[in-house]
């Protein structure tokens, strides 16, 4: 349970976040100094906004937390999330901005005009990916509040749901730019502070000491599995970090240490599948793609991505040291959580616990408040992505093509409220379940549906509507089948090994299906105009 100072920081940050959400748009119109949103710094603003938008609680708590319990192998998450933006920059960002549509399905049907099957299947993919992504965020947020603020889980979910819906409905749609900028700075700054304070307090301001220590430790999650049922296991709360590490290392001599590769993803197929799923999945997440429809000029899509790469890259570099530092400092706590059957807490709590030890109540407040704001805005972004596609690609296309703008906006808001309510319901229903596979599925589908279909549409003239549809369907089906197989615990499926991420099979399958079917069919859509628009000189200026 958090102290009053911590709570003050948490609520202060949420208040600032909501306040900025409400006032930012007004400020961007009525500020009397022109440099505020002037052209000169717009790329920086854009990139901070994109960074704030992208850094979710999963990045803030999850990546460092996972490194703290599994070691260096979990640096893959950060590498993949980072690399996804390089793929975006090189292959998709500018073309998507130049096509300048509302949603990813919209961009596709700009080439394959009035193709309802493509629009619908893409719309369903957006909804599925975003839903699978939003549920773990909500479950994680509930658990976080339950643990740190002491609220009842159901209560916490309802409060988060209500806040998100207010945030969306009230603060314009997505608490525009300024909020994301502030959030990007808070999360980056908090991680920086945690790193500096951890290094100075526990490691003599020597990053090398963190590495040296990491080599002496067995990752807690691994150790807990190996020590399960061992009667000689002590009461972890009575041990210091050094004693706990020494005990485990003595008991489990020869076990991989925190810097050994392969602890999480073993064998080349698993590693490559994971790496591919992360890097191409990030490039295919609908709510990430949507952001590119919002930047002012096509050129900004590129310069902003550069900024994002710097911010996000340095952020994930910090998480590696913070994660490994947390492993040592919190070793007895983490062992205690794992052996007490609280695995998900162990992973999500590493960053907040470390920040409390390194920086007291204030830093803990910033960490929790920052994480909470990240959850709010990520969930809001996901709900808006769902709401926009449902309204634009389904309601406006199928149910009521004559809908006025006013009607469209109200339907969008309604569907955001509805999907928000459903997300709360799912989160309550799935409490205490391990829902992280949903994220894997989200990334797997994103990597195998949107990345290939957008890539081929933007770059390949011979791509046909039938080919695009095949890409979407094959990508979706193959990734879903392999995730389900993994969930059911199958080691292989008709002789094909089941991996930790489906992308190694589903991405090539989707590409291949698209290419083969395209070569056999000939409806290339409005390829010439579409591609000239995507790659040609900027027609807006």
């Amino acid at each position, binding site marked *: 349970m958090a102290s009053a100072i911590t709570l003050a920081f948490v609520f202060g940050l949420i208040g600032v976040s909501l306040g900025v959400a409400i006032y930012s*748009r*007004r*400020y961007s*119109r*009525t*500020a*009397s*100094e*022109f440099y*505020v949103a*002037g*052209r000169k710094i717009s790329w920086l603003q854009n990139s901070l906004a994109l960074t704030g938008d992208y850094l979710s609680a999963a990045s803030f708590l999850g990546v460092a937390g996972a490194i703290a319990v599994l070691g260096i192998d979990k640096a*893959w998450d950060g*590498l993949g999330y*980072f*690399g996804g933006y*390089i*793929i975006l*920059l*090189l*292959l998709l960002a*500018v073309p998507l901005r130049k096509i300048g*549509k509302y949603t990813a399905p919209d961009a596709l049907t700009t080439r394959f005009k009035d193709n309802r099957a493509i629009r619908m299947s893409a719309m369903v993919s957006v909804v599925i990916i975003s839903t699978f992504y939003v549920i773990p965020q909500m479950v994680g947020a509930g658990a976080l509040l339950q643990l740190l603020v002491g609220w009842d889980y159901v209560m916490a979910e309802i409060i988060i749901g209500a806040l998100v819906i207010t945030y969306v409905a009230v603060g*314009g749609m*997505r608490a*525009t730019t300024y909020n994301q900028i502030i959030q990007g700075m808070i999360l980056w700054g908090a991680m920086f502070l945690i790193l500096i304070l951890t290094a100075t307090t526990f490691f003599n301001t020597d990053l090398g*000491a963190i590495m*040296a220590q990491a*080599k002496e430790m067995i990752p807690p999650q691994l150790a807990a599995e190996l020590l399960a049922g061992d009667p000689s296991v002590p009461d972890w709360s009575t041990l210091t970090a050094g004693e706990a590490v020494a005990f485990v290392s003595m008991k489990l001599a020869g076990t991989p240490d925190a*810097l050994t*590769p*392969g602890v999480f*993803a*073993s064998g080349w197929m698993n*590693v*490559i599948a994971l*790496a591919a799923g992360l890097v191409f999945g990030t490039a295919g997440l609908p709510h990430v793609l949507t952001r590119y*429809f*919002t930047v*002012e000029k*096509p*050129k900004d899509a590129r310069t902003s991505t*550069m900024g994002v*790469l710097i911010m996000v*890259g340095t952020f*994930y570099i910090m998480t590696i040291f913070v994660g490994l530092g947390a492993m040592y400092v919190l070793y007895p706590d983490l062992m205690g959580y794992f052996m007490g059957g609280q695995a998900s807490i162990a992973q999500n709590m590493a960053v907040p616990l470390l920040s409390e030890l390194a920086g007291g109540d204030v830093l803990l407040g910033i960490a929790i408040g920052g994480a909470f704001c990240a959850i709010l805005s990520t969930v809001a972004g996901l709900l*808006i992505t769902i709401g*926009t596609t449902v309204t634009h690609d389904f309601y406006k296309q199928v149910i009521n093509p004559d809908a006025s*703008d006013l009607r*469209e*906006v109200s339907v969008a808001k309604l569907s955001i409220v509805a999907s928000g309510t459903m997300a709360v319901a799912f989160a309550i229903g799935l409490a205490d379940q391990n829902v992280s596979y949903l994220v894997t599925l989200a990334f797997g589908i994103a990597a195998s549906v949107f990345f290939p279909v957008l890539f081929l549409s933007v770059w390949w003239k011979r791509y046909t509507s039938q080919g695009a549809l095949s890409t979407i369907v094959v990508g979706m089906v193959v990734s879903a089948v392999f995730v389900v197989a993994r969930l059911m615990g199958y080691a292989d499926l008709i002789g094909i090994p089941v991996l930790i991420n489906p992308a190694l099979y589903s991405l090539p399958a989707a590409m291949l299906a698209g290419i083969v079917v395209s070569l056999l069919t000939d409806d290339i859509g409005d*390829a010439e*105009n579409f*591609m*000239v*628009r995507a*790659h*040609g000189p900027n*027609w*807006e200026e």
Partner: protein
Amino acid sequence: MNENADQRQRDHIILLATDGSLPALAATKKAVQMAIESGSRLVAVTVNESSIMTALERKGEEVAESRLKGPLSLGTEVARAYGETKGVMVETMMLPAGPLVARILQFSEELDPDLIIMGNSGRSGWERIQLGSVAEGVMKHARYPVLIAKGFHLEEMKDIMNVAKGVARPTPISVVVEAPKVTLDSLGIGRRLSVAVVAMMLFLVPYFGLGLVSAFYPGTMVSDMFGSFQVNVIWILVIFPLGWITALVYNRIAETYD
């Protein structure tokens, strides 16, 4: 124009800030009338308003504004056309994107007008909280007299409304139809894709290479390289800057596409 009129024009400048909304049209009417009466030079400006918004946000804002929007025309063009009907030459200008108030103030400093005229939307409630009032902002900070046109009779607005209807606001779609004069072949998509893929390899080879070498040569990966930093840790830490270099190099190349 006779010499006498020129003399007076130098003496007197009216700055009209207009966004083509109904209140702005009322202000336009007033500005033209005053320009005639005082023989002033009339300069009409509009700010190219843009900010990072999702499509839904933009649409939401358009809906909120539609109540005030006249026939959706470009304010400066209406001022020019309306001025013509009254025999007044209206100079027009589109100010670059930025905060509306700041752009208007900044331009007023350059122009040094005798009077700024603008409309007041009369927003209230939630919209007012969210969008604020540009007229109020200009009034508060301007170093010149400001005249706010507030309230109007639709009956009296008929003439300018008719002019406005004739000046349709250009939609992006109509620009699209005209613009692509280039052909796909001239863009060299294949070459561009090769460049992008080659640049991508600069990142992807070490990225997937980390996985493959870790899987096949774990022993190499865990040997120390610099102090207590192992090969795999260094490799991971190097991938990030490699990504930055990839992005920078590609960015330089892609600049030529703009």
